[in-house]
């Protein structure tokens, strides 16, 4: 199981800013290790964000997203205290779900 995500969700005026840092190697499948063997691709393929029980973001990602991916999104029509649920799934089927609350 991967390390927990770091999530920051904060209201700025009428818009919530959601930033998430995911802990993941994001191997491209093109890199070689010290012994010259190709390191197999291992990367997050899918992310979803739900706020207050509604799906707001659905994303698909490739190997060219940097290691330990950081994403930032903005959501309107939500409020302080709404629950934010973020989920990712990688190409090996590993997954992780973390929750946060929108802060003031």
């Amino acid at each position, binding site marked *: 199981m991967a390390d927990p995500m770091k999530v920051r969700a904060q209201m700025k005026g009428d*818009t919530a800013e959601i930033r998430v840092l995911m802990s993941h190697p994001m191997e*491209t499948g093109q890199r070689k290790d010290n012994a010259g063997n190709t390191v197999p691709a291992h990367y997050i393929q899918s992310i979803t964000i739900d706020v207050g029980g509604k*799906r707001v973001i659905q*994303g698909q*990602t490739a190997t060219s997203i940097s*290691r330990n991916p950081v994403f*930032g*999104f903005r959501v*309107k029509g939500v409020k302080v205290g709404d629950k934010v649920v973020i989920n990712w799934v990688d190409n090996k089927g590993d997954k992780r779900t973390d929750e946060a609350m929108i802060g003031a």
Partner: protein
Amino acid sequence: MDALRRTLLKGAGATGAIAAAVAAGVLKPSQVLASEYNRTAFEAKDLASALRNIGAGSATDSNAIVIKAPDIAENGAVVPVDVVSNLPNTISIAVLVDKNPLPLSGAFDFANGALPDVALRLKMGQTSIVEAVAKTADGKYYKAKKEVKVTVGGCGG
């Protein structure tokens, strides 16, 4: 026996309810976010076929899509990019790097109040054009681009 029948009925009922909701226009198909991984597009090895495989082969150039990225990135392993679409009813944004081995980096759908704005960090092997594609609710595609110069490539790990 009875329990099985009940489960089957429940399953059928749920599917029926979704179909009814779609028919009634409560759930518009465009609002049901796609979940199938677009492998063909993500594995496309050049920009043109990646664009074609996300349906944006004939996207119109638009300056309403704003790409915020450094002119010169010192570290190609971490290039911060922020894409905002000012086109009304943008429902999806894709980000591509022309000269990367696999150009398509990410595609994001927005719903239920999410603004068409995505910030992410990209790997770039070399100096390249970064393209952003926005899809609007009427099914049209628009694109914008920005060149990012890379001094140290990001694909060596």
